[in-house]
């Protein structure tokens, strides 16, 4: 680590240390106190941001932990995993906050994770954003990925594999053919905010209302659960 190379102990540091010793005990004591305080602050500040994780979502956990805004998020993310109980607790905190602000949220299970149903109305959107902060915002994304794509593979690839497993997509369908057929378009923000590419249209060789298609979109690792 770079930090160890910068610690006092080299020639220049020794010279500075000797000079400081000649400046008297009170200044030395003050310097020691300042140094100790700085070390404590540096240690405390570096604990969370320097934590790194292994596994398919290691980088995502590191990134999420660095963006955590609540002790609850930090505690959940600290071990590089999100359990079902932790996810449920995050959702419980979120819906509780929404209820407190007068907005009822219905949870709908969608292949092992929740989507949120709520009535549009004054303040609902603002409350949703405020309540998600520090509760579900970072935790649900990781939980969703862990249950729907546990190996962190290409999402289109695992979805196509699911569709083939469900015997809906032709076994010979390539990833490129699948991507062409789902009619994806781009929405750009920033420099050309909101500019949209030409809308594509789905040309899949099966109905997008087929429960197997819906199931594979919801959770490609699970599909309908029957295969």
């Amino acid at each position, binding site marked *: 680590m770079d930090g160890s190379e910068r610690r006092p102990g080299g020639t220049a540091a020794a010279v500075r240390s000797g000079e400081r010793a000649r400046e008297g005990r009170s200044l030395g004591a003050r310097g020691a106190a300042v140094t100790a305080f700085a070390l404590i602050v540096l240690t405390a500040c570096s604990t969370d941001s320097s934590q790194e994780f292994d596994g398919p979502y290691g980088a995502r956990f590191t*990134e999420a932990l660095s*963006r955590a805004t609540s002790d609850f998020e930090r505690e959940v993310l600290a071990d590089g995993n999100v359990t079902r109980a932790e996810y449920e607790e995050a959702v419980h905190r979120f819906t509780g906050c929404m209820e407190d602000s007068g907005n009822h949220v219905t949870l*709908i299970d*969608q292949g092992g*994770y929740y*989507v*949120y*149903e*709520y*009535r*549009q*109305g*004054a303040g*609902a*959107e*603002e409350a*949703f*954003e405020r309540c998600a902060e520090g509760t579900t*915002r970072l935790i*649900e*994304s990781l939980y*969703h*990925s862990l249950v*729907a*794509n546990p190996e962190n593979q290409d*999402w289109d690839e695992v979805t196509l594999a699911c569709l083939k497993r469900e015997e809906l997509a032709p076994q010979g369908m390539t990833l490129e053919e699948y991507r062409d057929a*789902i*009619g*994806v*378009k*781009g*929405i*750009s*923000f*920033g*420099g050309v*905010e*909101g500019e*949209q590419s030409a809308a*594509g249209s*789905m040309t899949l060789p099966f109905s*997008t*209302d087929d429960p197997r298609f*819906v199931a594979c*979109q*919801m959770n490609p690792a699970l599909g309908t659960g029957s295969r």
Partner: protein
Amino acid sequence: MLRRMLSSVIGAALVAIGLCGVAAPASADINCTIMVSKTSTSTTASMGTCQMAQARIDRYAGGVATTYKGPLDVKSYVYNASGTNAGNYARGWLYSVYSAWYIV
């Protein structure tokens, strides 16, 4: 017939009001692109060059406009077939900042 038309107009107005409520969100300009697709009952959003994306579908039933939000993640999918489709939307997320919602 007239009642149905009136109901649709009121519904559209409610949806428009709801959309106005989210069109000026706590968001800022983010410089990235998401990839989206839709059906009459679902919205899909992938992160593209953003860090994450979120899919949303609004449904209208019995005089009430209801929002359904998928997870904020590298890929987000939300499905709902109740009532009638009142709009497919998606937004991007980059460095803790959301884009506004955009029509898919």
